């Protein structure tokens, strides 16, 4: 009963969740990526985002098929393997009011696309950069990815001889301004992180541990549901606040709650669990990631946030009008300028 009424609930735009749906998923039943699609739908619906204001991007792989499974009313571009970030960069300059959501995978971003992944981070392009991370190449049927842990054994592959790439660590090293880790088995937290990422004015990397139920869901292996469920340690309880003026902190014990304002007046409210982790402290973020690795823990939550860095757009003197709507007379200099140009040609 409660579920049914939720489905038809209209948001401030008068849109129901139905308006945010995509084509039916062709991924395996139980795939973590389906959770991801569902949470993107929920986050956009709850944030009252017009689907027409979103552009979706992806690379190649199971993860990158995902954008067809949400927001059918949005534009999208499924590009080349590992080269979603560059595609998004050019396209988003066309109309900077658009919200870019990029979907990639561990093969797409931590192997072939490692370069583009890190470079888009350092440019701080406003883009929600989701990496559906399952440690395995699904679409080519079960090879190790660069995030697979050492000594992992997979059917037909034997033992993985190499150390893994930690996506959050790479994002941190590349100076990403928003770094988070989520688990497909914890959809509520994922949704809050997505909301904050959408509002962030810069590259927001979310490393989502999203188990592959077909090729890599072994008990006790990193990237599996069972391991995630057992080892997930949210570093905080996190909620996205649409308007920071609404924040009321009195209910919670003082010192345990931190409010981080985003650039547009929205905020993230963080309730500390146990320790004293401050996600605006870059040094702490590195230590925590290293710590998680050593202790074999799936630490989830907002690992790092920097709202001070300017976004990529800000270093260009761009007009308020979308570049792709500029009339021809803004694009071609007037005829009289050419005489001056010819004069310079010596």
């Amino acid at each position, binding site marked *: 009963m409660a579920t049914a009424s939720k489905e038809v609930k209209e948001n401030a735009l008068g849109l129901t969740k139905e308006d945010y749906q995509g084509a039916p998923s062709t991924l395996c039943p139980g795939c973590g990526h389906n959770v991801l699609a569902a949470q993107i739908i929920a986050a956009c619906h709850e944030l009252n985002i017009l689907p*027409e204001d979103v552009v979706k991007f992806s690379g190649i792989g199971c993860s990158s098929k995902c954008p067809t499974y949400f927001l059918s009313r949005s534009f*999208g571009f499924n590009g080349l393997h590992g080269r979603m970030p560059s*595609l998004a960069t050019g396209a988003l300059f066309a109309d900077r009011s658009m919200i870019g959501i990029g979907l990639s995978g561990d093969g797409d971003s931590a192997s072939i696309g490692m370069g583009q992944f890190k*470079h888009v981070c350092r440019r701080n392009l406003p883009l929600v950069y989701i990496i559906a991370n399952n440690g395995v190449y699904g679409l080519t049927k079960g090879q190790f990815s660069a995030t697979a842990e050492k000594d992992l054994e997979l059917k037909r592959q034997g033992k993985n001889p190499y150390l893994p790439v930690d996506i959050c660590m790479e994002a941190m090293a590349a100076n990403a301004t928003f770094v988070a880790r989520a688990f497909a088995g914890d959809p509520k937290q994922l949704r809050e992180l997505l909301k904050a990422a959408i509002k962030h004015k810069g590259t927001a990397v979310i490393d989502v541990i999203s188990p592959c139920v077909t090729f890599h869901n072994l008990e006790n292996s990193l990237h599996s549901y069972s391991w995630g469920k057992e080892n997930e340690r949210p570093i905080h309880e996190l909620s996205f606040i649409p308007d920071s003026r609404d924040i009321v902190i009195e209910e919670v014990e003082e010192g345990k709650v931190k409010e981080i304002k985003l650039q547009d007046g929205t905020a993230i409210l963080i309730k500390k669990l146990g320790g004293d982790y401050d996600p605006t402290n870059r040094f702490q973020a590195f230590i925590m990631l290293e710590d998680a690795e050593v202790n074999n823990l799936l630490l989830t939550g907002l690992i790092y946030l920097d709202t001070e860095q300017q976004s990529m757009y800000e270093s260009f003197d761009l007009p308020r009008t979308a570049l792709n709507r500029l009339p021809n007379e*803004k*694009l071609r200099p007037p005829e009289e300028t*050419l005489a001056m140009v010819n004069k310079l*040609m010596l």
Partner: protein
Amino acid sequence: MTPVQVVQDSTDDSLSTPHVNDFCITFSTVNGSGSATANLTVLRALFKMGIPVSGRNIFPSNIKGLPTWFTIRVSKEGYLGRMDKDAVVVAMNQKTLLEEADWLVCGGVLFYADHLNLPRIREDVVQYAMPIKAISAALEIPRQVKTYVENMIYVGIVAQVLEIDLVVIKEALEYQFKGKQAAFDMNFGAVKAGFDWAAENIEKKDPYRVAPMNATKGYILADGNTAGALGSIYGGVQFSGWYPITPATSLPEALIEYLPLLRKDEETGEASYAIVQAEDELSAIGMTIGAGWGGLRAMTATSGPGLSLMAEYLGLAYYAEVPVVVWDVQRVGPSTGLPTRSAQGDLTFAHFMGHGDTEFIILIPGSVKECFEFGWRALDYAEEFQTPVIVLSDLDLGMNYWLSKPFEYPDEPIKRGKILWEKDMESMEERLKALGKEWGRYLDIDNDGVPYRTVPGNRRIGSSYFARGTGHDEYARYSEDPETWRKGLDRLSLKLELAKEVLPKPVVEKMERAEIGIITSGSTYPAVEEARDLLAKKGIATDYLRIRALPFTDEVPQFIRAHDHTYVIETNRDGQLKQLLTLEFPDLARYLRKLSKIDGMPLSAGWITEQIVTKERD
């Protein structure tokens, strides 16, 4: 001071024949020594004297210490091509001195810095030793700029001997140092010192000199990369993701230099463009294609190795029908090859680049003026046909200085092709409703192969679509249906077929009673033009066709048929233009003769003439 050394070959009469405004002069220096300013000063001064000139930089892939040459062709006839031999060499580099002495024609002139050791003296050339160090010692030049300014001493000496007017040298330097008075004074002081020394100490024994003409009035001096960038700016370029690579780099750099001048709103200071230096060519093309898809006029520039990296994304752009322009300023390949030498070796690769069935529109400018024109036209074609357009320039055209008629303002309005915004979509939907159809991104409504596109930012519901490199139907939905695939790909070739109607036609020039044809393209044009005159003097009349775009238009087979046989002249090993002609017109292949060479140097009229004369004799 060192006495002037003159060794004359009495059997040669070239010394007694004056050579005015018709010779080639090469400056030999070490790269990184700042000689570019000195050499450009001479080039500009000659231009200002009204004499047709072209300047070629033959430089190493290096920053400091390796030999570099700058060759100026002075031609009263207006020939701009490379010559095989020099009449004058100005030698400032010990390591290459002997080599350069061999480049000189009999009766040529060798200026050399007197601190260089000249172990062997060619007896048939005039030699002038230049006491650069002694003259420089008398000037007050700060140590850190000494080598740079010393180059100006040879400018003064050469100017005096060849009779280049000191007034125009001064003007050229003023242009170079725009408002930097101290730098100008120091450099002009050095020129003057060299000039005065030569006037007092050199007894002119050679026959080479220049004299004022009136042949450059109304002309400009420009390089192809700057021209291409400017053309793109007038074509409304809005986005470029680019990555540095010789010899293309100066094209995006010219965008960065001239865009703020031409495309910033005077009142608000707002820019109508964004130029982004990418991390590599994979990203440069990804960004540029993203921008083209987003509805921006998008272009990038690269050279062979970069184009190889761009191939995959360009294949996607071809299939997903994304407008984008790529300038390939060709250098010598394969592999890293000769990065600082010119070639026309990317033609077949560029035309068919990508896996599967692909074919790209190619534009081939043959002059700096055409670089400008194709700069704006390429952006129009890309959007009109919703496909990548590759502009094939090369190092010779792109980085060297060419005398040219001024750039001309586009004579056609900007063409954005079939793009639908909210209002357009409304009427499109009505139009389609009457046909019982709905809009689809790849629906060929006009039966001309070109569908209607929308771009992100169009907020009308039903305007969006999901672009992809995977198989798709007319509504951009994923499809593996055999018939859908076949039809989709056939439509893409139809677009290119119809593009022939509007792409630049070949340029044809005829001679009376010519039975021989010549087909060429791009930067070989000046050498071919000159060779035809030389051949005509030997009694060999030729007609000439310069290809400016691919796919080939009907004029090409007509031209081949109209001639007994046709030489296809190009700067590569395999005769790639001939290969493409053979492929397209197999019946005509027997009329084609390959005339191609690749050694890093632009073709010369001398070589072309010799080849054709020999072949015609056989």
